[in-house]
């Protein structure tokens, strides 16, 4: 075999290996979905959504968990959206290039790389103890809001950056102020991209487990929360609790809970992708 043939064979071998490598992750995802479907699908019923957690696996449900997740999602959104979008606007539209802008940028990249459990420690000492929020929905939401803030800020900046300068200049030429220009022209033009980022950030927030455990979310809550000051649990923590038990019946519950959690996550990510594609097709500057 000459050199020429060897290198052609190597090239084809790599092609096969690379396709195999690409498939590995997708195959694993397939096995995961099949396994969870087989274990948990038969457990899903109306009663599963309306029952409180229980010592007996067959009676246990996810009522407190999904209500808690809903509370956390809404409260986190209320906190993270104005701060994240505001910070994005400031960085992209207002701040001058300089030391402070550079510092902020490095800071945001750093925050994005901090392990989520560290945010839990911050939440525990600052929100739970120092601000006396207790182990409440409010403390959990503030913690998660800080966690997803970099995602919201980065996507806001990217979307604002994509709005052409001419739009701003036209608005200034008509006598609009900086804020009027930003609020009435630039933000609506960037809304699709910003929404995509917000949805992705919230989807990340509802999948988080570790920081909420550290903040003191409970693994067993016998009631649904009535206000942001109540203690709470969320879907991932309920799943974690069931997975950690030795009895096999609880693993069935965990699989059923995972189906619900995955459906929510996939729906949100799907919505984000669709929104992004429609936006890109719609807006042609």
């Amino acid at each position, binding site marked *: 075999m000459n050199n020429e043939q060897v290198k052609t064979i190597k090239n084809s071998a790599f092609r096969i290996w690379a396709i195999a490598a690409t498939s590995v992750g997708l195959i694993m995802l397939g096995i995961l979905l099949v396994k969870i479907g087989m*274990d948990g699908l038969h457990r899903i019923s109306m009663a599963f959504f309306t029952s409180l957690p229980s010592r007996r696996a067959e009676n246990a449900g996810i009522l407190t968990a999904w209500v808690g997740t809903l509370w956390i999602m809404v409260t986190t959104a209320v906190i993270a959206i104005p701060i994240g979008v505001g910070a994005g*606007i400031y960085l992209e539209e207002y701040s001058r290039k300089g030391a402070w802008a550079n510092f902020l940028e490095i800071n945001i990249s750093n925050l994005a790389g901090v392990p989520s459990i560290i945010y839990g*420690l911050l939440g525990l000492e600052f929100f739970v103890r120092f601000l006396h929020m207790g182990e409440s929905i409010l403390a959990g939401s503030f913690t998660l809001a800080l966690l997803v803030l970099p995602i919201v800020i980065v996507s806001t900046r990217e979307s604002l950056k994509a709005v052409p300068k001419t739009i701003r200049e036209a608005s200034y030429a008509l006598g609009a102020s900086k804020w009027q220009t930003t609020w009435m022209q630039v933000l609506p033009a960037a809304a699709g991209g910003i929404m995509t980022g917000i949805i992705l950030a919230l989807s990340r927030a509802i999948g988080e487990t570790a920081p909420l455990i550290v903040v003191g979310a409970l693994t067993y809550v016998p009631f649904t929360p009535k206000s942001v000051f109540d203690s709470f649990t969320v879907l991932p923590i309920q799943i974690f609790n069931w997975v950690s038990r030795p009895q096999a019946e609880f693993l069935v519950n965990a699989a059923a809970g995972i189906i619900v959690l995955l459906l929510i996550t996939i729906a949100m990510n799907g919505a984000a992708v669709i929104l992004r594609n429609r936006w890109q097709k719609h807006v042609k500057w």
Partner: protein
Amino acid sequence: MTLLPQKAAGFYCKMNIKEKIIEGFLFACSAVCVLTTLGIIAVLLVQSVQFFSEVPISSFLTDTQWTPLFADKHFGILPLLSGTLLTTVIAIVIALPLGLSIAIYLSEYASKGFRSTVKPMLEILAAVPTVVYGFFALTVVTPFIQKFFPGVAGFNALSPGIVMGLMIVPLISSLSEDALYAVPRHLREGAYALGSTTLQTSLRVVMPAASSGIIVSVILAISRAMGETMIVAIAAGQQPRLTLDPTVPIETVTTYIVQVSLGDVPHGSLEYKTIFAAGLSLFVITFLLNNISFYIKKKYREAYE
């Protein structure tokens, strides 16, 4: 301004104040990020300083046992760090060859259609909540490994390490692919003109040219794996031990923090402070890794054009 009628001047003045207030608010939003960083550092430092006033740093760094919750207390971080290191190394050993091959394939071989279908599918892997991966490691991967190696314990470092590796594949593949894709075309054409195959061009021309981007992706993946919590908390066990054996139960830094948070350790006790000392160790390592990657990205940014 003096030429303006009284009313208009007042209007502009009011508008000016409103503009200033809004700018102030937006500035405050961006300052939240800085305050978050300062808050994290302050919280970790304050609690850790109290911890180190009771436990000398030397024994924290050199003691080979970590038993703060037992009667015979030892506070050596090494067993936890070795657990974190072990699972991270397994994850990277899995993720690096897979992720890099996928990146090269998507950037150099695949058609546009294939690329735009596969990339978002891989990104689903990164969007799955980690508690789901923990379940997968415990109920699918561990039994699968035990079928071939019956000696492997029900909780071990291998299974969560492998699953974590698959989880971070998209991180490496997508960042590396961006770096490879950005290498200008004429470099490839030069290689092809000399008679190289696609593989030779990829490995000897494109990959070296994109090396800094690839290194950055790997560093970020390492940092991500070290901070991962739920997969190891579910499937790796909760037994801190100084070992590099992937078949026995271990405990990572992150798992320890979860373990203490689930129990009821009184606020202000030495046990309570241990989670902040452990958290500080983790934070310092990931912070260094992240900043090394920023530095590389900035310093070795390829500029060909």
